[in-house]
C-alpha cells in the first residue's frame, strides 16, 4: 500500500465531505472544520515528495498540514501525521506491524498535544478505538487489509458514540450539556482518514 496514495485519497474524501464536516462543526463549534482540513490536505498532496521513503512523505505532509490548516485541526492532524511518519522511519514498505506502530504513535501525539482522554467528545474517541481494534486484529494474525478494516469500523463506531457525550475539550466544551446530541466533527474526520487507509489496503490486498 502506498502512503502517498493514502494522503491523496484522504484529501479526496475530505474534499467530498468538507461541507458536511463544517456543518457538523457549526452545530457545536465555529463551522470551519471541513474547509480547514480540506485546505490542509490539499496542500499536503501538493507538497508530497516524488522520491524518498513513505515515512519521509508523511513527515512532509504533516508539516504542511500544521502550517496550512488553521484551527486546532492543523496542529493535531499535522503533528499526528508527522509522528506516524517518524514511526515508519526509513522503511521502504509499509507492512501491518509498522502501520500499527504509526497509528499508535499518532494517537499518542494527539493525546499529548490535546490533553484529551476517551469520552471527551474529540477525535480521540475515533482514533483510540481504531488503534485498539487494529492492534487486536494484528495480534490475531490479521493482514494489512484486515487490520485497517477493523480500525476503520471501530473509528466509525467511535465517532457515532460521540453523539451522547458532553464535550470536555475545545470550543464545544463551552456549551456544557448543550453539546450533547451532536456528532463530534473531529471524530468524524478521523474516521474518514482511517477509512481511506482501509479502502486502499483492501484494493491492494
Amino acid at each position: 500500500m502506498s502512503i502517498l496514495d493514502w494522503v491523496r485519497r484522504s484529501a479526496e474524501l475530505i474534499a467530498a465531505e468538507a461541507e458536511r464536516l463544517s456543518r457538523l462543526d457549526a452545530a457545536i463549534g465555529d463551522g470551519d472544520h471541513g474547509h480547514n482540513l480540506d485546505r490542509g490536505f490539499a496542500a499536503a498532496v501538493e507538497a508530497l515528495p516524488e522520491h524518498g521513503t513513505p515515512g519521509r512523505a508523511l513527515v512532509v505532509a504533516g508539516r504542511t498540514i500544521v502550517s496550512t490548516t488553521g484551527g486546532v485541526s492543523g496542529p493535531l492532524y499535522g503533528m499526528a501525521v508527522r509522528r506516524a511518519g517518524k514511526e515508519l522511519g526509513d522503511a521502504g514498505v509499509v507492512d501491518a506491524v509498522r502501520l500499527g506502530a504509526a497509528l499508535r504513535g499518532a494517537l499518542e501525539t494527539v493525546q499529548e498535544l490535546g490533553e484529551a482522554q476517551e469520552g471527551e467528545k474529540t477525535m480521540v474517541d475515533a482514533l483510540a478505538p481504531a488503534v485498539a481494534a487494529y492492534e487486536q486484529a494484528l495480534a490475531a494474525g490479521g493482514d494489512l487489509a484486515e487490520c485497517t478494516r477493523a480500525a476503520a469500523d471501530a473509528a466509525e463506531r467511535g465517532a457515532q458514540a460521540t453523539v451522547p457525550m458532553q464535550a470536555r475539550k475545545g470550543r464545544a466544551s463551552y456549551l456544557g450539556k448543550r453539546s450533547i446530541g451532536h456528532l463530534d466533527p473531529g471524530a468524524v474526520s478521523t474516521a474518514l482518514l482511517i477509512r481511506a487507509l482501509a479502502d486502499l489496503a483492501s484494493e491492494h490486498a
Partner: protein
Amino acid sequence: MVGIVVLAHSRKLAEGVAEMARAMGVGKAVVEPAGGDEHGGLGTSMERLKRAVRTADGGDGVVVLADLGSSVLTAKVFVAAAGTGVILVDAPLVEGAVAAASMAATGADLRAVVRAAEAARGHRKT
C-alpha cells in the same frame, strides 16, 4: 531584551493587546502581535506566529502569550520545535502581556519575564 509575542484569533485583539503592553509597560518593550489567520480573518496562523517570533527575537528569548483553543495548540507546537529560547506562558492575555512587557523592558532575563507573566494570573478582580 526579551521579546513578547501576542497570539490571538483576531488581528485587532492581538494588535490591541500589543499596543497596551507597549504603552502600559514600564519602559520600552518589544511586543509583536500575531493575530488572525493568514488572510487576516479570525483564526490562528502558524506562519504569522513564526514571523512575529522572528521579529520579536533580539537574541535574549521570546515569550509567547496565546488567547485560547487553536492559538494555544499552535503555540505549543511551535515552541516545542523552536527550542529553549521561545516559551509559551500560562497567563491571562492582557495582564500577562502588560506584566511581561514591563519586566522585559527592565532588561530582565527570559525566566524573569516568564515569571512576571504567569504571576499576572494571581491578580483577582473581585
